[in-house]
């Protein structure tokens, strides 16, 4: 039996359904569906998202000055990222969940970053930290790709040059909220990017 996920945020529907259940007016299949939706799928998905959000492991990827502030967040006892779940930063992209693009993306580096992103396994998220990774920053010239969102799907943009460590932490918390709200379907579905697969 197919169970669809419904956004039952309509209070009136909930009230009417509850009244009908008390009266005994709800037929068996509908009752079963009601119970399954609440007990099985919704809770499991929420638990899965909660687990994913609170254990996002960043890949050590620093490009330029923003990397210093990123190391300040990951490595500093004052602003500690491990308390938000980013316990270890994995060097290998195959083992990492999140790519924090910290620094200026030059035209020579862009295919390398794309390669790294493709090596990461689903689910994966990208935070573009700083002005240079989100747009060209202050370097609007021949040597930079104006914003990494030209070749990567980015989830959170953090402005600043460089952003304070607290700003980076706020961005990561926002990413966690985004993961909680939006169950992850893989980035191609999330960004409606079907058709961007590599040629075999």
């Amino acid at each position: 039996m197919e169970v669809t996920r419904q956004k039952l945020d309509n209070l009136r529907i909930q009230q009417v359904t509850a009244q009908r259940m008390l009266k005994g007016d709800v037929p068996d299949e509908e009752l079963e569906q009601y119970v399954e939706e609440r007990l099985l799928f919704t809770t499991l998905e929420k638990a899965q998202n909660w687990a994913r959000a609170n254990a996002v492991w960043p890949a050590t990827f620093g490009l330029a000055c923003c990397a210093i502030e990123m190391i300040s967040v990951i490595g500093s006892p004052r602003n500690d990222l491990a308390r938000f779940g980013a316990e270890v930063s994995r060097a290998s992209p195959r083992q990492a969940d999140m790519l924090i693009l910290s620094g200026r993306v030059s035209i020579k580096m862009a295919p390398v970053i794309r390669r790294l992103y493709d090596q990461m396994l689903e689910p994966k998220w990208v935070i573009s930290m700083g002005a240079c990774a989100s747009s060209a920053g202050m370097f609007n010239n021949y040597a930079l790709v104006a914003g990494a969102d030209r070749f990567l799907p980015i989830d959170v943009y953090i402005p600043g040059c460089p952003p304070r460590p607290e700003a980076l932490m706020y961005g990561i918390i926002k990413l966690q909220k985004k993961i909680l709200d939006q169950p992850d379907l893989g980035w191609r579905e999330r960004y409606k990017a079907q058709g961007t697969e590599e040629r075999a």
Partner: protein
Amino acid sequence: MPDATGLELIAQRVRDELGDDAVVGTAYYRDQATLEASPARVHDVLAFIKNHPEEPFEFLSSLHGCDYLPDAPRLGVHYELLSMTRAERLRVKTRVGVDEAHVPTVTDLWPGANFQEREVWDMFGVEFGDHPDHRRILMPEDYEGHPQRRDFPIGGEPVIFTFNENEMPRWYE
């Protein structure tokens, strides 16, 4: 720094040793001495100044290029020399045009000029004869154009304000 008379003395020594065509001119501006050499002889001039018995300048601080558009000849290569024993700096420069941009390499005198000459080639297009590794260093190797020339456009993308947002082409179009 060698003062103005010291600079003239050095220039005269170079002329005596290598002939009058080696030195194109001297300039003394804001307490900094500049000796301009002709492009074909710049290697000999630098070797002479480096190994001079009395006043050698044995350390190459920096090798960089400059585009003097609209002055001709356009491209300049600067050699910043330093004497650590006397704490003095001397600048030697040559000017070449875009069409005959050939300067002899100084990697045999100073191996540290390797990366710096590659950068001048990459950014300005000055060829250094006999350079061991004449490739682009900062831009991708198959990049066309020499970015730091003055007539190379600065690039980048147009900034979209509200008055021009409907005319500007977006990258996804």
